[in-house]
């Protein structure tokens, strides 16, 4: 299908959001956030794809030519992955400390911030 890949990306974004909304464990919520982000990877890579061409890396067997997939979206996805890894690390560190202070990581039981 012509636009199926994009729908997969949209589904991942919303499914990740659903995961956070229904979550009973902070680590699960953080991983659902990562699921949402993988939706953006799928979208970016799908946008840059072209049928029947090769990767944008040249060498002795691949002469420089324009018949390659879009390298810019790959660069953007690389940046996106690094961002995701680092933000996940920070959020997990926060979750570790929440667990230590409140003895639980269930969002339903965390009670320090109402009102």
């Amino acid at each position: 299908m012509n636009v199926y890949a994009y729908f997969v990306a949209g589904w991942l974004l919303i499914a990740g959001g659903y995961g956070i909304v229904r979550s009973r464990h902070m680590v699960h919520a953080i991983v659902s956030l990562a699921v949402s982000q993988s939706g953006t990877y799928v979208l970016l890579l799908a946008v840059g794809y072209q049928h029947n061409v090769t990767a944008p890396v040249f060498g002795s067997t691949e002469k420089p030519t324009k018949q390659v997939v879009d390298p810019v979206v790959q660069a953007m996805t690389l940046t996106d992955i690094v961002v995701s890894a680092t933000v996940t690390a920070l959020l997990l560190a926060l979750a570790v400390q929440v667990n230590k202070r409140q003895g639980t990581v269930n969002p339903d039981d965390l009670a320090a911030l109402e009102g």
Partner: protein
Amino acid sequence: MSRRVRLLVFLVGGGAVAVMFALAFLSMPHFGRPEHLYRDLAVPAAVRHATANVVSSVNFDQRAIDTFGEETILIASVVGTAALLRPAKEETERRVPDTGRTLGATRLVGYLLLPVSLVIGLDVVVHGQLTPGGGFQGGAVLATGLHLLYVSGSYPALDRLRPLELFDIADALGATTFAAVGLAGIAIAGSFLSNMVSFGTFGALFSAGTVPILNVAVGLEVFVGIVAILAKFLEQDITVVKEGDDG
């Protein structure tokens, strides 16, 4: 809000967002089309700068400021994680307890694969301008390779191979190199992060100007950064205890 109300609110919002996505996606150019404007500009630019891996050229040459921001996020997260996982006032660090038992075979495989992983990681970093890979990918391979020591059962060995004070300096060094190359670009070529070193021969190890330099800087930074982050998490689990606990 109760779980049911929360779900209802989300279904309303998420449903409408899904409709918006659907309408937008139906107007997108179809998957696999041949027209890509940015690619048609980026590939010749990469070839002009003698960079065989176009993605590396985009990352470290054409859109280098993005990568500068990205590696800033990395070092900021390392510092942030170190700050967040520091032992609190009522905690101390204890000596590493006696490790459990692992199979001899597991340990052997770990020790054998460690140098192999490290060499592969270095290869990926250094050849970033020629083959798929580069600083980020190679740094991640190096960092996880080092943790084979932990996975195969020897946290004390990992701890010895991982002097964290030096790693802080190395992390800062990687980021500083990137910024220094950028500022040198102003001095030499009039523009921040311009590729002002000689380009070399297309396809040779010393090609693409500043791209391999930045690749190595980023590789160093990613390697030590990931090791530092993992170190903090491992310490929280293994060595940090409340004062008065024997663990």
